[in-house]
C-alpha cells in the first residue's frame, strides 16, 4: 500500500498534461513530446499508472431495472401534467399584463376620458322638458327681478313724483 507519503510526484510542469494525456485530450504535438518524456521518467509513468488504477474507482454505476423506468415515466408524466395545468390560469391572467397590452389599454382609457370630458359633455346632457320644479326654478329669478324692475320704475319716475309732491305740482 503506497499511502500518501509514498506517492510518486510527477514532474510539476507536466502534471496537467499527464491528466489530459490520460483522458486522451492532449493535442498531438504535446502528446508526442510527452510520450518521449515518459520513456525516460519513472515518476511520470508511475503517476499515469496511479490514475489508471484509481480513477475508475470513483465511478459508482447504477443500472435500475425496467420497472424503475416504468415508474419513472409515469411519475414524470404526472408531474408534467400538473405543471401544464398550473400554468394555464397564470398565463391567461398574466396575458393582460403584457407590456404592449398595458400600454394599449392605458391609451384607450385616456382617450375615453378625454372624449367624455370634451365632446361628450354636451351629448350627455338631457333634452327632456324641465319638470315643474325646474320651470319654477327658472322663473323665480325672473320673479325676483320684477321687484327690482319695479324699483327701477319708481326711480325712473322719481322726478315726476317729486314734482307732484311740490306745491306747484299738486295744483
Amino acid at each position: 500500500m503506497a499511502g500518501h507519503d509514498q506517492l510518486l510526484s510527477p514532474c510539476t510542469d507536466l502534471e496537467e498534461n499527464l491528466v489530459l494525456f490520460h483522458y486522451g485530450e492532449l493535442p498531438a504535438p504535446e502528446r508526442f513530446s510527452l510520450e518521449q518524456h515518459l520513456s525516460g521518467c519513472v515518476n511520470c509513468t508511475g503517476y499515469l499508472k496511479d490514475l489508471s488504477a484509481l480513477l475508475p474507482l470513483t465511478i459508482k454505476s447504477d443500472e435500475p431495472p425496467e420497472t424503475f423506468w416504468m415508474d419513472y415515466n409515469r411519475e414524470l408524466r404526472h408531474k408534467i401534467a400538473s405543471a401544464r395545468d398550473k400554468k394555464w390560469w397564470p398565463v391567461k391572467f398574466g396575458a393582460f399584463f403584457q407590456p404592449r397590452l398595458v400600454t394599449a389599454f392605458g391609451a384607450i382609457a385616456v382617450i375615453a376620458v378625454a372624449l367624455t370630458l370634451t365632446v361628450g359633455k354636451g351629448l350627455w346632457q338631457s333634452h327632456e322638458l324641465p319638470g315643474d320644479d325646474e320651470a319654477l326654478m327658472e322663473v323665480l329669478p325672473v320673479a325676483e327681478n320684477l321687484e327690482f324692475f319695479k324699483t327701477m320704475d319708481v326711480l325712473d319716475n322719481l322726478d315726476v313724483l317729486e314734482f307732484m309732491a311740490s306745491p306747484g305740482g299738486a295744483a
Partner: protein
Amino acid sequence: MSLLESAETTRQFPPGSVFISGATRSLQHMSSSVRARDEELVAAAQRGNHQAFEELVERHKQKAFHIAFDFCRDREDAKDLSQEAFLKAFVNLKNFDGRSSFYTWFYRILVNLCLDYKRRLKRSPTDSFDETLETQMERSHEPNRPRSPDQQVLAGQISQKVDSALQALPAKQRTAFILKNHQGLSIREIAELMQTAEGTVKVHLHRAVTALRHSLAEFV
C-alpha cells in the same frame, strides 16, 4: 494482492488510453443527424406538441439519470433530480432559443440542479450520508458477481472513501471531473456546458484529479 486488485473494480488501462465509463455514455458518438432530430422535437414541443417532448424525455432520460447519479450517488435522489430537470426544461422550453444544442441547454439545467442539491445537503446533512456498508454493497458495481465478505467490506470502504473525497472537491472541480471521468464528455463539451473556457475546465480537471489521487492514495 493489493487492495485495488481484490476490490474487483480494477480496470487497468495502458497510459494514454481514453477512459470512458462502462456504458459509453459520451456524446462524442452522437451524430449530427441525431442532434438535428433533437432540434426538430424541440421545435415541435415549443409549438405545443406534448408527444415531441415525451420523445425528448425518452431519448435523454437514462443519460440524465446517470449524470444525476454520478453527482448524488443515490438512486432515488438521482431520479428526483433528473425528473426535476425535465420539468424545468418543459416549463422553460419557450425560452430555449437554439443558440446552444438542446443537449447542452438541458444538461446545464441538470448539473445546476445537482450542484444545488449538494449545497442543500451541506447545509442540512441527511441520513443519505450515513449509508451502512450493507446499503452500499446492495448497489455494487457488478451486482451479478458474488463477492467474498472481505471483498464486500473492502468495496464498502472504498466507496465511502470515494464519496468523501468527491464531496470534498469544490463544485466546479467536481463537475468537470464527473463529466469527464464518469460521462466521458470532451473538454469542449464540458466547457460549453459549464459556460467557461476550455483552459479553465482543464485546470479544474487537473486539480480534481490531483486531490482525488491524494485522498485515495491508500488504495494504490
